[in-house]
């Protein structure tokens, strides 16, 4: 049973398009579009519909809860109204995410696909980054040659970060599922950890790196669980995220 997502947009095309996009990475997640408004004769209009949102929530809720993601202005207000009208039992498992619609939905869908609970899915949506600096996506890794495929690491008794680098062995590289796995593992640790310069607790940022097979993943961790974090990442990479 997965958390469901409801996409509230002024445009039915936007809502449906985002569901299509997210479905590619999250086949088991109930993704329900609540876009646009139908006039009396069923002609689609730009706008948001309270009724559509209520219906979508009930369709998306399989018992694990629902996260609503919205576009502009009235979509937010319509979603808020719907939350005031659903019964109080269901209300406990429905969240309205303050997130960028496309990025937030994809991040939430990937998280929901992994079986995460409604609050974790909401957090994934809300921490998905809107604007990415392309120069940060493929950082120059000066020490890449030092450790490809090996995972050399150093200890962190003096508070210095623990670092390691690996070459990705699996054909799909760091795609959505492993990104979600890594981010979830790191979120459970007491650690500040980056992968190729981005926050390793963010599914979206990990995915945005676009690290394919043969690319070098460099992790840097600091904090009480730093070594544990590096060990876990290393084990995941070595097993090709379970895909080898």
């Amino acid at each position: 049973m997965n958390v469901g997502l409801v996409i509230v947009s002024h445009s039915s095309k936007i809502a449906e398009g985002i569901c299509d996009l997210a479905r590619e990475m999250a086949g088991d997640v109930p993704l329900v579009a609540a876009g646009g408004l139908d006039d009396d004769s069923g002609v689609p209009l730009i706008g948001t519909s309270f009724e559509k949102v209520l219906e979508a929530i009930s369709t998306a809720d399989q018992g694990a809860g629902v996260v609503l993601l919205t576009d502009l202005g009235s979509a937010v207000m319509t979603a808020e109204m719907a939350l005031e009208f659903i019964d109080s039992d269901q209300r406990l498992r429905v969240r309205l995410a303050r997130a960028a619609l496309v990025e937030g939905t994809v991040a939430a869908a990937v998280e929901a696909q992994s079986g995460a609970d409604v609050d974790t899915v909401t957090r994934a949506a809300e921490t998905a980054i809107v604007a990415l600096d392309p120069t940060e996506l493929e950082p120059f890794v000066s020490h890449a040659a030092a450790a490809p495929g090996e995972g050399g690491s150093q200890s962190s008794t003096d508070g210095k970060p623990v670092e390691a680098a690996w070459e990705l062995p699996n054909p799909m590289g760091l795609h959505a599922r492993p990104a979600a796995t890594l981010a979830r593992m790191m979120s459970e640790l007491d650690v500040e950890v980056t992968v190729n310069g981005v926050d390793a607790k963010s599914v979206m940022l990990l995915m945005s790196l676009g690290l394919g097979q043969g690319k070098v993943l460099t992790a840097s961790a600091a904090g009480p669980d730093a070594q544990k974090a590096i060990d876990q990442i290393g084990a995941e990479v070595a097993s090709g995220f379970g895909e080898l």
Partner: protein
Amino acid sequence: MVEGSTSTLTTEWVVAWLRESARVVSENRQYLIDLDRAIGDADHGENLDRGFTAVVKKLDDGTHPATPGAVLKLAAMTLMSSVGGAAGPLYGTALLRAATSLGDTEAIGPDDVAGLLTAARDGIVARGKAESGDKTMVDAWTPAAEAAGTAAMAGASVAEVLAAAANAANAGAAATEPLIARKGRASYLGERSAGHLDPGAVSSGLILQAAADAAGAQE
């Protein structure tokens, strides 16, 4: 006009208010569209006209609920499902809160009028999270609710309370012209939103004027 402060309004006033709102919104449909085209997405007139047309259709469908509060709630739900733009949840919330403030009341006195307008204003503020001066509906509703409260305290009749609210709303709407929008679609325009009336404040003035006219016409 209503004579004396003991006169009260009934469900018939609510129905007349909603019908008059539909009429003036329809009459000003193009005006509201033009205002919204200048600083928004040009749909305010069309959306409100569609919403109030749907409300009138519900009223025409035969028996409407008996109490003023229940009729306001019916109108609120209808607007929320048919307007489409921000005005749907905003006016929907306003009328819902107004309905709640009335409860099962069948005879609406001056204090009730001030109370329902204040509840409606609070609903709009809660839903839209706008403050006075943000160039929104709040700039019409806040002076309207305050004027209604002052008039009711001074012992005015229900019709006088509504007239005070309408006048204040229209003045508030007119005063939105120089403001820079800080909420809603117009806020994307920043300084370019100055020099235009806020369509939501203008429609609020029309709807509150309709409330006053319906009370004046009821006697």
